[in-house]
């Protein structure tokens, strides 16, 4: 395996970006990520992006956004209809092939024009489930009830996760939910989808991110402290909610083992855990001990940009390690209802 590192990152997350199109708000991020390492688009061996037509409300929506990269002359490029974490994975595979040394990866999404809670119902089995329009929060609420009844976690522990996310987010300029709230205050909130309260659900945001990857010595040339992807893997669970244990994340468990999470000490983890319950399940599935700081950025409870939230976890971990606030981190991205699909990576400073 080649050594592949993240060498630069730029992000923007806001509650609602209403006056700019995806292309308009992505161009400055793309520029920022490239300028940080002194590269132009033509220096990129490969480019890959992640987004969703369903969020953009337009078929082939990524065809507009590619113009933001400046693809003249033509570029070697691809796109995943997934979170940008999977675009990063495709770029990582391309770099592993050995014929390119640099890659540019970006992702974005705007949830504000619609109701993400309802839009995500269109991800469900189209014949038996989607026609019932089960909204995303209600599905998570059912899973949360199972989790509480399993005795693996208590309502108070979920409130503690929510409270800690807000505390961590207070130092994150990109967080959209960062006002402090005590555990008691959270427990006093009215339910959104019983047993989930407003503080248990993701803080929806619009935005995106851009990132440069590089291999081996090329990465060392481009920045002082490359952040190496030491292991990366992704897996998917059954889509049928009744066919899997919703209090566990089997696919995250496999991905963590394949990515080598348990092989060495972990300083912190950036988990794409949209709900407090997701964090509780993931912490156990990934085998993260009490000594591991979870979501120092505040995580998706503080800012959740659909289609970029997993990718941004890589970026948050990169920035933290690059500035020396930790040496080894676990990064996670998810897709589908109740943690159906999961990617796990281990990042490490030079």
């Amino acid at each position, binding site marked *: 395996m080649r050594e592949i590192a993240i060498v630069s990152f730029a992000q923007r997350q806001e509650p609602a970006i209403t006056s700019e199109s995806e292309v308009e708000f992505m161009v400055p991020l793309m520029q920022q990520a490239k300028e940080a390492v002194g590269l132009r688009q033509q220096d990129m061996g490969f480019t890959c992006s992640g987004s969703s037509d369903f969020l953009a409300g337009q078929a082939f929506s990524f065809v507009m956004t590619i113009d933001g990269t400046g693809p003249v002359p033509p570029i*070697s490029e691809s796109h995943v209809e997934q979170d940008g974490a999977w675009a990063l994975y495709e770029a990582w595979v391309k770099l592993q092939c*050995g*014929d390119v040394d640099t890659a540019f990866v970006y992702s974005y999404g705007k949830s504000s024009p619609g109701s993400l809670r309802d839009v995500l119902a*269109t*991800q469900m089995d189209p014949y038996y489930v989607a026609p019932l329009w089960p909204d995303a929060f209600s599905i998570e609420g059912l899973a949360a009830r199972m989790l509480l009844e399993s005795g693996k976690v208590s309502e108070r522990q979920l409130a503690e996760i929510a409270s800690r996310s807000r505390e961590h987010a207070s130092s994150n300029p990109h967080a959209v939910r960062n006002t402090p709230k005590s555990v008691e205050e959270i427990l006093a909130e009215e339910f959104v989808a019983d047993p989930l309260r407003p503080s248990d659900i993701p803080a929806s945001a619009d935005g995106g991110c851009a990132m440069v990857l590089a291999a081996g010595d090329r990465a060392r040339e481009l920045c002082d402290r490359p952040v190496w992807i030491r292991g990366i893997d992704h897996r998917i*669970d059954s*889509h049928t909610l009744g066919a899997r244990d919703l209090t566990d994340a*089997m696919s995250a468990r496999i991905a963590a083992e394949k990515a080598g999470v348990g092989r060495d000490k972990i300083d912190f983890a950036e988990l794409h855990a949209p709900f407090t319950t997701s964090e509780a399940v993931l912490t156990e599935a990934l085998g993260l001990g009490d000594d591991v700081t979870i979501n120092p950025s505040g995580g998706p409870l503080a800012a959740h940009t659909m289609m970029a939230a997993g990718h941004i976890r890589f970026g948050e971990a990169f920035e933290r390690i690059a500035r020396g606030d930790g040496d080894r981190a676990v990064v996670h991205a998810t897709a589908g209802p109740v943690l159906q699909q999961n990617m796990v990576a281990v990042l490490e400073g030079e």
Partner: protein
Amino acid sequence: MSKERTAVVGVGQTKYASTRGDVSMAGLLREAAYRALEMAGMTWDDIDAVVMGKAPDFFEGVMMPEIYLAEALGCVGKPIMRVHTAGSVGGSTANVAASMVQSRVHETVLTIAWEKQSESNAMWALSLPQPFTTSVNAGAGGYFSPIMRRYMAMSNAPELIGCMVAFKDRQHALANPYAHLHQHDLTFDQVVESPMLWDPIRYSETCPSSDGACAMILTDEARGDAHDGPVAWIKGTAMRSESNSYGGRNMVSPAASEECANDVFAQAGIHDRRKEIDAVEMYVPFSWYEPMWLESLGFAEKGEGWRMVEDGSTAREGGDLPVNCSGGVLSSNAIGASGMIRFAEAALQVMGQAGDRQVDGCRTALGHAYGGGAQYFAMWIVASDK
């Protein structure tokens, strides 16, 4: 570090049709996947990862359908990825799957592309109003027809070249049991007399709208060598994208097309393209794109591609560079799958497994796909020899 040599050991297709009402989306994909597994002599246990492609989710109204399809594709507990690069997606998906093996990240990968257009309304899906952009609402034919007119003006091609391509591909389709259109009684005159839709494109010069899926099994060198059956070795893969509009853009032969072709032919070590390639599966949704792509891909000099159509060079019977022996996109267009079908048909040709549409002695073949405003390209070259 050299890339792992990668082999295609299984190809599976569904029967393409305007409505496959007999199967769900999951059933459609399973049909193609099982056929690919059967040809490869493998089971789901042999598959390390799945790479899936299709065109816009609005075509079926299911957001990120790989989530729903996880079980149908036997990938519970395995990795699955979803590629989407507009019309070129089927080709890009195969290339991404190839990179999974070439990088040695996985040993055996199932790649699959599909569209089940009958479950929604593609015209509606392509016409959603946008707050920031003006919709052309002209359909793909309306977009491409001025470019074809430009080609005709530049090359002085005779008016009926497009009809010749369409008639040839519909004849070729009769030999392909999977093809959507089997027009046994179609005559050349009927093509010429069919209604003009977007001048110069007549009704019979356009692709149908199909349901269908295409799957392939890709594996590493050791497994390719050990495989007890036909093998297609991947000699080169390339993808290129460019902006849809910029000053000086050549719409007839886009720079992305030419660079993608140069890359893939160089990887395969091919110098005389026309001589060394035995069959081409080319993305031709509108008839005039055959002569246009023949030039853009370097099989003919600029302005001369139409002569290959006229003299029969691209016909399976008697042609030296048979193009679209499967009937092509003009005979089956399950959009998201169309690119992968081109790649898979190229593989079948070099495996000697193309049945009645087989080109005698085919050893090296090109699979080609394009998308967007002719701005996304994906190509691969496969050969019977390693």
